Structures are given as C-alpha cells and as structure tokens.
C-alpha cells in the first residue's frame, strides 16, 4: 500500500517529462497542424547545448535553459522558414519531410559529437532528494516537475498576457480576421514555431538530468510526445497538461502492476480506446481543423 502511494509522485514526475516533451508540440502540431517529426531532434539539440555549456560557468546548467531555448528555437525557425512554410495544408507531407530532416540532424549530431553518449553533469544542488511520505523524491525530479510547471505557467502567461501570445491565439482562432486586424500572420507562424521548438530545447536540457545524451535521444521521446498531443486534442494547453498527467499516472501505475513493456502496450491500447469515445482528443479547438 505504501508503494502504491509512492507511485503518486512518480506518476507526477513521468507526467512532467511527458509534458515537457509535448508542450512544444502543442504549438507546432496542435496549433499549426504541422507534424514535426524533428521535434525530438530539437530536444536533442537542447541536451547537447547543456553538454557544450557545462563547465563554462558555475551555473551553466541554468544558463543552458535559455540558451537551449534559443538554439532549438532558431533551428525551428530555420526549418519553418526554409521548408515547412511551403507545406501548410499538407500535414502528411510535413510529417515525412520533417522525418527526413530528423534523420539528417541525427547523423549530424553523430558526426559533430560522436556516436557515444556524452556526459552532462548535474549541478551539485540537484544531487540528492527530499523525503515525501516515506518516498525519496529526487531533486532532479522535483526540478523537472517544477520546470514543467514553470513552462506551462510561462506559456499560459505568454499566451494570455503578452502581445505576441495574444497575436498567436488570434491567428489560431481566426487567421483571416487576424490579417484584417493588421497582424502579419506569416511572421506569427514563424514565431509560433520558434516557441514550440524552443520549448523542445528546454526539455532537452531538463532530460539530461534523467536520461542519456546522444544522437538517438530524440527517438526515445518522439512517439510519447505525439501520443500526448493526440490524446490531449488539438492545440489546447489544458488538453496537453491533462493528457500528460493522465498518461503519466497510467504509465506509472501500469508499470508498477505489470512491467515496463506491458505498460507501454497497455497505454497504447488505452489511447485507442479513448479515441473511440473522443476521436478528437480531450479538447477540440473549433475552427481550424487538421486535415
């Protein structure tokens, strides 16, 4: 029974990881209808940013967060500007296109950083943990949960409080009216991509705390990330949050009761079953539909 309660914070921390990797996708996939298979490689870019920056200063891990946001964000911007722009309205083609890009990026990482995993040392203050209800909750997990919360709140504030965020919501809700309101919609699209990719970069830095840092990093997370977005529904922040939490707990408990392999399979079955009830995910944004 104790262990069962223990799974609560674990479900939460799995949810936090899912949320971090999927948050950026809710913008690029959910809001723009672009299925960016290279999202995982933007996560990887964030992780390598943390690798390159470490040792530069004593707080390089924290510095890596904004830098990774910028690096991955710029990569996303470049991708949107150079390729994806031509593909709006062809979501299936963007899927294949970005998968091609992801292959190239993986090989590029292999050539730049070598095939083996590289070492990213967690800062000293993230070593150790805190005891909660008899369970030791690692600081790095606390940090990831915190970062996920910060990112969600940040994104929420950005969307609701900042001019750029308002513009983004305006474009998503009614692209034509946004143009009539004087908004340069093309620029907003590009910025949306920058934000979504940047968040992937931030996720990448955080994942160095709990996972490997190597050229295949992105491939470990991409499917889960998409499932979160699919289950959450199009372009809705609250959908992504709820789906991440639900899948996190589902994963945590299923793995506890069965094993890691079976849990993954069962989660997939659960998603198919869920889509039978809600084919469009938890929340549907009226207006712009995908496909």
């Amino acid at each position, binding site marked *: 029974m*104790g*262990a069962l309660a*223990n*799974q609560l914070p*674990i479900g939460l*921390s*799995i949810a936090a*990881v899912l949320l971090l990797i999927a948050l950026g996708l809710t913008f690029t996939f959910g809001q723009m209808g672009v299925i960016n298979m290279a999202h995982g490689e933007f996560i990887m870019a964030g992780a390598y940013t943390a690798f390159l920056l470490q040792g530069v200063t004593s707080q390089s891990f924290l510095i890596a967060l904004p830098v990774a946001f910028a690096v991955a964000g710029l990569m996303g911007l470049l991708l949107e500007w150079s390729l994806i722009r031509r593909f709006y309205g062809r979501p299936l083609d963007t899927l294949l296109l970005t998968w091609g890009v992801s292959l190239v990026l993986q*090989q590029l990482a*292999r050539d730049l950083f070598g*095939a*083996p*995993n*590289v*070492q*990213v*040392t*967690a800062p000293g203050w993230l*070593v*150790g*943990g805190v005891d909660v209800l008899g*369970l*030791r909750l*690692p*600081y*790095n*997990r606390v940090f990831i949960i915190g970062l996920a919360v910060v990112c969600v709140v940040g994104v929420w504030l950005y969307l609701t409080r900042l001019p750029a965020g308002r513009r983004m919501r305006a474009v998503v809700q009614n692209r034509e009216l946004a143009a009539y309101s004087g908004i340069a919609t093309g620029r907003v699209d590009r910025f949306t991509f920058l934000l979504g990719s940047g968040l992937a970069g931030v996720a990448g830095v955080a*994942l160095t*705390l*709990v*996972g*490997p*840092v*190597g050229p*295949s990093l992105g*491939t*470990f*997370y991409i499917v889960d990330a998409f499932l979160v977005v699919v289950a959450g529904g199009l372009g809705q922040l609250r959908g992504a949050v709820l789906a991440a939490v639900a899948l996190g707990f589902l*994963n*945590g408990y299923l*793995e*506890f009761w069965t*094993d*890691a*392999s079976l849990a*993954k399979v069962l989660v997939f079955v659960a998603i198919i079953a869920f889509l039978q009830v809600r084919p469009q995910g938890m929340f549907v944004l009226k207006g712009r539909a995908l496909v």
Partner: protein
Amino acid sequence: MRSRTFSRGLTALLLPALLATACVDEPGGGAGASGDEIKVGILHSLSGTMAISEVTVRDAELLAVEEINAKGGVLGKKLVPVTEDGASDWPTFAEKAQKLISQDKVATVFGGWTSASRKAMLPVFERNKALLWYPVQYEGLESSPYIFYTGATTNQQIVPALDYLAAQGKKKMFLVGSDYVFPRTANKIIKAYAAAKGIEVLGEEYTPLGHTEYSTLVNKIADAKPDAVFNTLNGDSNVAFFKQLRGSGITPQTTPVVSVSVAEEEVKGIGPENVAGHLVAWNYYQTTTTPANDAFVKAFKAKYGADKVTSDPMEAGYNAVYLWAEAVKKAGTTEVEAVRKAAGGITIEAPEGTTTIDGDNQHVAKTARIGLVQADGQIKEVWSSPGPIKPDPYLRSYDWAGGLS
C-alpha cells in the same frame, strides 16, 4: 489518378532500377589470400543505435591489423581490412557477412556485438564454412564450429560476479535487465545460482531497449531493499537508470549495483558521478596492469586521441585479430579448416593477461575481474580470479546449473 495515362510511361521507370540491380554485379575480389595481401572483414554497426558501442571495437580491431602489418603481416602478407556497416540491423549483418564472404572473399571476419547480430550471422558462416570472431561477452549456450568467441561466456563473467557478491555476504538480490536474450539468460543463470546458494531474488524486471523512464523501477527497488542489484541493462538505458537511481537516494554503500554491460566507454556517457562506487564485472579494464595493456592503451590513444578510453569488448576485438593471426601462422595458411584445427591451444599475452583458445568450444580462457567504478570514470579492480577461467558456455561443470541447458 489517371493511372492509364501514367502507367504507360511508368513501367519504364522500373527499367533503370532493375537494370541497375540486375546488371551491376561487381567482380569478386579474388581469394582471401592472393598475391601479397590477405583480406579480412570487419563488420560492426557504424550507424544506428549500436554504433555507440561497436565503432570503438572496430577501431581496436583496425589497430591490431595495423600493428600486425607493421610487424611484417601474416605469412609475409599484409592484412587488408574490408570494413562493412551492420547498421544496427540484424538482417543487414547477415547480408554484409554474406557479402564479405562471397564477394570480397575475406579470409575471416571480425564482428558483431549484440547476440541478435551473432545469431543472424551464424547460419551465414556455417553455410559458407567461413570464420567469424565475435568479441563481446554473451549469454553462452552456443558453440558454433565457425565462430570463435573472444569475449566472456557466462562462467567467466556472471558466475564470478555472483561468487563475489556471495562472498561479500549479499543475500538478497534484485535483477534488472533490458528485454532481450542476454539479460533473460543471465537472469536464469542467476536464479539457478541463487536457488542453490540460498540467495533470495526479490525482483526481476525488464524494460524495452531504449527505455528511459526508470522511476517506477527504482521505486520497486527501493521498496524491495535488496543487498545488491544485478544489472544487465544495455546501452542508453543504463544512463537513465543510473541517473535516476542516484537521485532516489539508493547509494552504492547500501545497495551496490553490479553491471555486466557497463564498461569505461559507457561510464563516460552515464557520467562517472552517477555510477561511481558501483561494481562491474569484466575480464579487462583500462587500468589492468600488464605490459601488453600499457602498450595497447598507449597505441590506442596515440591513434585515436588522448581522451579515448579502452574497454573489455575493444580489448576482446583486439585480441581476436592477434589470436587469428597466430592461428594462421601455426597453420601456415588462411584456409578455414586448417586455421580451426591450429587454433586450439593458441596462447597470447593479451592486455588482460594470458589468454588461450579452447579448442573444444572455440571460446577463450579468460581471467574474471570485478571492478569498482571510480569518480574519474576509470574502473579499479577489486577482485580477480586466481587465473584464467576455462570457458564453459553450457555451464556443464556447475552442478547447480543442471537444468539450464
């Protein structure tokens, strides 16, 4: 689609593709030992997920080839390596093995890492009566006449590790592994051993290859409170496992983890601080003190860079080339059956110490070593077997292992 209009021109598309494949049949490279050259195949994953591990083994094998050539080659002929990419894909290993044998006509092949790649190549070598030198520790229960196994079999790695743990008074164990054949076989051996020696196995958990979410598993370990964890995770999963294990407060002091797939190269990727103090079981470490190893490490760093580390599978690959060369010298030919016959009893002073080919099962006698991971990423030997252990892939000499094979 206006398929009628299209298809007219389009079956024509088949032409170039088919012509290309059908008509280009590169001429074979002649016999393995022709003129003053001997071709040897080197077949590892240079791309895909396994490239992480296998590229370094290839490097070590190429180093050995280079060194042998520098000393005048074999039978007065130079070794010419033909490198192929297994692409972390088992059918590709089989395909490339076939290519090396039938197209390049190499004298022998050094290659493979995963059990799956070996199992895929095995029928190819048996069918063609060609030789494969396989350099990685594996799950045993195999003995092919056309494969030489220069890595450890279970009685040279897992069993000594268990002996060590038992000697340390570890009575309760938790088994963690990636979901594939080596961990499952290893754990079967461990359970048989445990049953015979009064050790309790508290849990046995497998995760998919490439799994990175270990909080639940770590929770299960924390809950079970074992004396030791026996870890047969492979590759990237180790990084996630050790990072998340460390965060949970499970320390090497309370619960040491013994790993059999974590070598110097992996320690670097995991981050030494995450794995320091835990145990590993191998036959060789970079710190192993033999004259041959000093030379090996020095040569390796000189060739590939001072920041490079050496590890057990690399050393086993390096040895494989030397062992084959010695066998060829003894046989006086590269002809496969002659080399096989000559190989039994071949002994070299390898970086890990004296190693001898066992003519019966084509494995190699090796010294087992338990090591402690240091904060600098190097591994310090804390125990070693008194001498090279005779390979016993089917564990026939262990009475507790009766029901295993």
